[in-house]
């Protein structure tokens, strides 16, 4: 992977290993949130792990490399969109059932992966929201350039 940011980030060894581990971390995040209603974990943990996989990439390759490949505007949109989606689920609950955010899907069979009504959907929404949001926070905090203007 020849690129103009080859000097940034960490050493070549780290970069090479990162190429494999990033996907493992990402997949682990997916696993955690998909099984949120069956095993420990859920949307929040899954989202943070997914954010951490991006953070891992940024730390290893340097922020310029990543910011060229990740569309931050799309991340902002996804973040806001997932939050809107959460409220829409609530409104559907208000419309179909009678209360805001009431479950409107069948409960399914206990212990099965497709069960628990709207919980998996909410987990997905939360996972996207948390993953995108936390990566953005990390990105903005880490890439903020302190301009030395002296005491003003």
């Amino acid at each position, binding site marked *: 992977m020849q690129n103009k940011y080859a000097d940034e980030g960490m050493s070549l060894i780290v970069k090479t290993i990162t190429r494999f581990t990033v996907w493992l971390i990402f997949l682990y995040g997916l696993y*955690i949130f998909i099984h*949120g*209603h*069956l*095993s*420990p*974990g*859920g*949307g*929040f*943990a899954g989202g*943070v*792990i997914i*954010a*951490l996989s991006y*953070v891992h990439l940024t*730390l290893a390759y340097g922020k310029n490399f990543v910011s060229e490949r990740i569309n931050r505007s799309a991340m902002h949109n996804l*973040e806001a969109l997932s*939050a809107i989606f*959460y*409220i829409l689920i*609530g409104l559907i609950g208000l419309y179909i059932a009678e209360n*805001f*955010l009431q*479950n409107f899907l069948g*409960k*399914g*069979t*206990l*212990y099965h992966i497709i*069960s*628990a*009504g*709207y*919980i998996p959907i*909410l*987990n997905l929404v*939360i996972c996207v*929201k*948390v993953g995108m*949001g*936390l990566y*953005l*926070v*990390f990105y*903005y*905090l*880490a890439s*903020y350039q*302190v301009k030395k203007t002296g005491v003003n």
Partner: protein
Amino acid sequence: MPVELWLYFILTVMIVGSIACLEIKNILSSIITIGIVGLALSLAFLFLGAPDLALVQFVFEILCVIILIRAFAKRSVKLTALKRDIPETVIAVVILAGIFVLSIFALKELPSFGKPIVSVAERYLTKAGMETGSQNIVTSIILNYRVYDTLGELTVLFTAILGSMTILRKIGRKKRDAK
């Protein structure tokens, strides 16, 4: 080994770690020490039957430490030469010690460890699986019974992110022209 003994050990580690974290004069060591305290807390959650929280605490702690290190330690931000203001510290310690002694009387009335009053939560334990179809009861609480809280929680995160972005704008005010 009973749970209590493990917890005494973990809590001691946490207290010592916290004091160390506050007193160390190096910024990187300080942040790493608080990481250790957070990981000890994650361990405590495991012993107390809260694997969900152990997982979340673990990953959040990592993210926190990374954010703090990237934000401060990487910039070679120096901690100030901490000259201690002796009278202020003494007053603070005396007041806090007073609060601690008074709290002993109050905290005595708590239900003893390991025997909580469980009334509302009994419903979750017995019926949550049937009523929500979720195997993980904590998930069924945060995403079905108390789903409103989770909306608030998401909003807090959204607010914090938006707030950080707002604060990190380079230029806040537009210049006005002087006469």
